């Protein structure tokens, strides 16, 4: 697809500089993988494709640029460069089909918007919006949590201390960006955790 039409970001790279920095990232390549995570053939095929190990429950393996997110007991999200996504999905599905492993692999690179939040007291910013426990003990680096941010579903990926990514569906990108910007507004700093 590299020589095809150029994909637009859902919010054209929106950015808000508040108590923390909220930036819309290019979604990158995202491949949804459903299958039996405990199945060795499945795991081998997936890890070979991803280039990283299987993630633990609610954990991220690899990096946000190339890695695997544990999304549910039978679902992973493969993150990789967008240019590779369509072919990776096709190849992985073909390999699993050939091995007669029941699985569903789909390129969903355009289904979600992706935001990066960096700065101090990020846990407090997120705790304004999610009922999930943002305390260090409950949400360590390397973990993700699918939850709700105010009224929409989202996945919060804890990349590093003071560095999180939020994935939400594309249609609510504008809502989510406004939510995050509001929670990150200067003047509302709170140092709880």
């Amino acid at each position, binding site marked *: *697809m590299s020589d*095809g*039409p*150029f*994909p*637009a*970001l*859902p919010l054209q790279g929106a950015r808000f500089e508040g108590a923390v920095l909220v930036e819309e990232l290019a*979604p990158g390549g995202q491949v*949804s993988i*459903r*299958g039996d995570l405990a199945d060795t053939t499945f795991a081998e095929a997936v890890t070979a494709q991803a280039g990283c190990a299987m993630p633990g429950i609610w954990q991220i393996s690899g990096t946000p640029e190339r890695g695997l997110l544990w999304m549910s007991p*039978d679902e992973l999200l493969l993150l990789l460069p967008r240019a590779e996504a*369509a072919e990776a999905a096709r190849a992985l599905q073909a390999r699993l089909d050939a091995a007669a492993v*029941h*699985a*569903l692999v*789909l*390129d*969903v*690179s*355009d*289904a*979600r918007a992706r935001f990066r939040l960096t700065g101090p007291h990020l846990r*407090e910013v997120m*705790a*304004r*919006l*999610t*009922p*999930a*426990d*943002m*305390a260090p003990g*409950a949400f360590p680096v390397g973990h993700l949590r699918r939850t709700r941010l*105010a*009224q*929409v579903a989202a996945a919060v990926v804890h990349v590093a201390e003071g560095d999180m990514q939020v994935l939400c*569906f*594309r*249609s*609510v*990108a*504008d*809502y989510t960006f*406004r*939510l995050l910007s*509001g*929670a990150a*507004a*200067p*003047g*509302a*700093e*709170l140092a*709880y955790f």
Partner: protein
Amino acid sequence: MSLRLSTGGRFTDRSREIRFSFDGTTLTGHPGDTLASALLANDRLLVGRSFKYHRPRGIVASGAEEPNALVGLGQGPRFEPNQRATTTELFDGLVAESQNRWPSLDRDIGAVNVALSRFLPAGFYYKTFLWPRAFWKHVYEPVIRRAAGLGRAPHPESRDADSYEHFHVFTDVLVIGGGVAGLMAAKSAAATGAEVLLIEQSPHWGGRAPVDGGTIEGEAPEAWVHRTLAELDALPNLRRVARLMGAGVHDHGYVLGYERLTDHAPGQPGPRHRLWRIRARQIVTATGAIERPLSFAGNDLPGVMLASAMRDYVVNYGVAPGQRTVIVTNNDDGYRTALALHRAGLDVPAILDARPMGGGALAAEAREAGLRIEPGRAVAKVLGGKRVTGVATCLAEGTGAVLEEIACDAVAMAGGWSPVVHLWSHCGGKLTWDAAGAFFRPDPARPATGADGAAMVHAAGAANGELHLSTLLQDAATAGKNAAAACGFTAADISVPQGEDTPEAPLDPIWIMPRKATPDLRMKAFLDYQNDVKLSDVQLAAREGYESVEHAKRYTTLGMATDQGKLSNINGLAVLSDTLGQAIPQVGTTTFRPPYTPISMGAIAGEARGEIFQPLRRTPLHSWHEANGADWEPVGQWRRPYCYRRTGEDRHAAVAREVTAARTSLGLLDASTLGKIVVKGPDAGRFLDMLYTNMMSTLPVGKCRYGLMCSENGFLIDDGVVARLAEDTWLCHTTTGGADRIHAHMEDWLQCEWWDWQVYTANVTEEFAQIAVVGPKARALLEKLGGMDVSREALPFMTWAEGTLGGFPVRVFRISFSGELSYEVALPANLGRAFWDRLLKEGAQWQPTHYGTEALHVLRAEKGFIMIGDETDGTVIPQDLGLGWAISKKKADYLGKRAQERSFMASPERWQLVGLETLDGSVLPTGALALAPGKNANGQRNTQGRVTSSYRSPTLGRGIAMGLVRHGPDRMGEELVFTTEDYDAADEAATTVKARIVSPVFYDPEGKKNDV
């Protein structure tokens, strides 16, 4: 008169003066004052008028329990009614206005209600104004509306200028209340290593102890408070937040906290209020106790105040509530106030102690100070009009015969203390009657329980009925330790400091003062100040048979005002018990419900306002629609263009133009909102055969089929085109707004019923932009883009193909919801806008017309296609809609099949789908009913059908409609009479319209147009 003392004031900064305004008058106070203390310092005793009788009212309390001093605060977009002056921190420039007065606080017309009070007894709402009915609208209601109500609502056009937020936090132990008990409990819990959050509603830590005296480890309580705060702040596992009220305790340790961040400092950046949504494993309520008033005639006059509040004003704010204060008490605590006033240099002409034997050590101290003590005496009535001028005394046990009149300008009531049990009780904690203290206290054997079935709430200190320093600290330490232990933290041994206070003689509750008060006195003794409920009202309710405390409460409105009866509950209950001749524990209490005190609507809404009041879902083409004049229509949370008006066009004209373009040339529709769900696996065909009424497993790869889904009740829930992508893979289209619901429905059946079937689903709605290219020129446009064969032969009707168009990777479906030649093109969402632009550019020669949902509806209605939500309403089965052809007869089972066999579902009497054509060409109202002769058992007109969709068809130049009609398909050509929107049974000729039953397919019945 009340005024600022020359010394004193723990909270106030005398070195600075700040200005505020009350009812337009500029007054001054000090930082640290509350609005109440500042008003008192300015001798503003009269602060409001009561709810029902508009009686003049003054400040009674010093905290959250205040019933009278409610004011309108702020101006313009920051105006807020019913703010308690006692918990409003004074700031420079504060603007307040009194409430419930008209035209002014001093001269209030509504006060005439007082003269009428004998006609406004308990239950007057239910008894009065019933007759004559015609009077209600023009006489009673306008008068009552002006006179009743509490405060005034902000202007309807005004928008709150502040922001609000929520904050979610988890903790092991939450301690609510930052008095000495709360500090002790928090310290004890934190010593185990548990995470502790300690919250305090006021700006100050230490609670009442610094005012009430006694010692902790030999020091003044204030010193211990300071030392303990420093110790707590050194702990990494303890956090404390002031100005954060525990508003409500809910199931599973969910506690709402209400933090007021900038009320005391408006204009500061950041949110005004923060709603803390706390999840605590264990909760300690250290919420203290509230003093009770005494029920004597005139106890509501400005100048009559709780004894404890008086010493708060003296000690905390350096304000004298009066110059000459008569103390009336039924316990030793009243003497503390007498001594505090005396020490501040204020006159205490008499202490009326209702107990025949008088008091203990504190009384002795007062006597030594030279104060006059009158045991066995009570107040017969308070003298004065808008403020106290004196009291008439009597025997406490008598009827109120006056013994003496004592001139004074203030009266302090000390009726004993009631633990604040609200938060203990919110989630089911039960109470037990403490006869010695004459109060309800938490019953440790029956606490609120949590998810594990064990105690979740622990009461500590005064909130637990331990009112004295000598026992309170140990009680609080134990509560904190137990709470931490319940979280699995081993108790650490911490030394509990020894508290000491003066021992007290027993209290003697006197619920009616004097005990045998005559009826005229009882009619002037108020129990609930805010709702104007008098002693006589509760007695009347009991006599009229409202013997249950819950009934009496509602009948009299006792405790139903914004203060929720913090002062009145126990007194009211005691009077009810007394009247019924039952013991108080037998009568029981009313239910305590959150919030403890009112919290702002803004805090509840949090971020959900304005642009993000709710999520609006946007398609990849949203900004193009916005820039091109879309009139939006909400479809679920999606926003879709209803039509695109050009200059000078109304909606009708725009829709007609859009429909005509699609029929005659080229239309473009953003169909991205259509749900798209991929279903794959060895059992996917079998699964879809269960989900849809028709057969999907036999659909060849490359083909599309229209399908219907029903609930297990047999009712139609969704429809859409299914495409078979591969041997084991299908793509199911759902209605707009149906995607999440249908995906959840699929997962439900897969996970919970057929969990051994090998099927995976994925909701890929958001992955794709989908654009319908519609009309006779549709193929020409796609061919011009080039890249794949879209000819009739290569891509016949009801097939799909993958390829590229103009270099875009696409999946093209040859399906039609318009009856025209039509392609639905799906492509990655982030390429959607670029593709749309390309279509417009390349299609220019055919003048491509983007159309909205209304044109979509007209196009489908002209073809007789049903729409979920129009033709269906949750009671319609496919058979009603002439869709029997889409129900497989071969399948043994599908969801809803058994229900559709029920006799009512199979009845020929069900209304069935037909087309409807008005005889005059007009448009039938949607929802119009077809009249039938006669009336039903309820005397209502019989009906025989209804209009489900109705439009003006630009193609046919007339109104067309679909509807459900009894025996409809068998009655082609018959004329029916339909109601219009202003249907009037008395004038049916003018308010009905005739329509003929026709086929629902109005346009191209042979389907030639789309199969080209």
